[in-house]
């Protein structure tokens, strides 16, 4: 009997995990705008960028090994696509009470140290990432100027070595969006650390 109840507990916990994964945006959905505080203290919304052709929203954080390995690539993407009219916005979704490496002060230090060329925003109260359906850091969402989602997932196919990348998923998706085509793939698996949610009391 004990085994059975344990089994039920186990599968019910699995089920909870699955339902949280299946929510969030799919390509074609309209994403919500936000108003989040950046490391310079200013509030940032997508509606601030009247002339943007689209938005690259990256959920990322300070110390997840995957996020760290992608830092320079994210910075390069921000610079490259700014010139083409696409705005990259990074959002740190982690609860600093669970992940002490992700406090606002440490975000400021990171942005300064790595010379981030993009707004690095705090998802205060963790209200935005669940709406997007982000689960990892890094996890990218490519939106057009009307905030319709065109691509969700990973930046490319090699976290360890930028020079060994075979498929640049995000850049290919931006190129497709720019030409008015549907990206293929429009969804990849974002590989990284799980987002650290506030502990339920």
């Amino acid at each position: 009997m004990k085994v059975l109840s344990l089994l039920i507990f186990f599968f019910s916990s699995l089920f909870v995990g699955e339902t949280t994964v299946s929510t969030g945006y799919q390509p074609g959905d309209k994403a919500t705008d936000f108003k989040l505080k950046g490391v310079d203290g200013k509030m940032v919304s997508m509606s601030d960028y009247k002339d943007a052709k689209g938005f690259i929203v990256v959920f990322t954080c300070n110390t997840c090994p995957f996020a760290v390995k992608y830092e320079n690539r994210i910075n390069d993407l921000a610079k490259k696509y700014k010139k083409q009219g696409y705005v990259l916005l990074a959002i740190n979704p982690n609860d600093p009470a669970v992940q002490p490496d992700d406090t606002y002060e440490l975000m400021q230090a990171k942005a300064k140290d790595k010379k981030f060329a993009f707004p690095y925003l705090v998802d205060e109260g963790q209200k935005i990432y669940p709406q997007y359906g982000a689960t990892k850091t890094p996890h990218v969402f490519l939106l057009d100027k009307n905030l319709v989602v065109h691509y969700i997932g990973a930046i490319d196919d090699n976290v360890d070595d930028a020079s060994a990348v075979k498929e640049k998923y995000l850049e290919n998706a931006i190129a497709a969006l720019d030409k008015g085509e549907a990206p293929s793939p429009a969804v990849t698996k974002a590989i990284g650390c799980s987002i650290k949610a506030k502990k339920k009391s």
Partner: protein
Amino acid sequence: MKKIYVLLFLLAGNLLLQAQEIKVYEKFDAFQKEVLKANDTIYVINFCATWCGPCIKELPHFEKLHTDNKKVKVILVSLDSRKDLEKKLIPFVKKKKITAEVLLLSDKDYNTWLPKIDKNWSGSIPATLILMGKQQLFAETDFESYEQLNTFVTSFIHPNN
């Protein structure tokens, strides 16, 4: 003085014998061929990494399964980077005194190989695969206790209990 050298030599030899050799698979296909296609016993394959907190937490349960349950073969598949083998993975295995088999799968093209393990795998770890021939059971979750892990394994071996 000579004695010290002999002692050091013996000590070094002893350490080498104790440390397990970690096999490296740089491509998923090779891992699939050698590990996933083996059908001599029930395999419990745990995907983990030295940087993954929840993985480290559940590691003792897998080590206990390895020592206590002789019906299954436990394999810990580290998804660390190839370059972290010497400076992170090997010292980690030594420090945690892991006796279950550890191997390194450093293929970073996750979007190609994750679906070959389970099409619904989002890519988070820890994740665990139980395998016997063509039968398999996959869970993208961590085990909070040995009992929970054991229940999962038992549900594979005796699905009707």
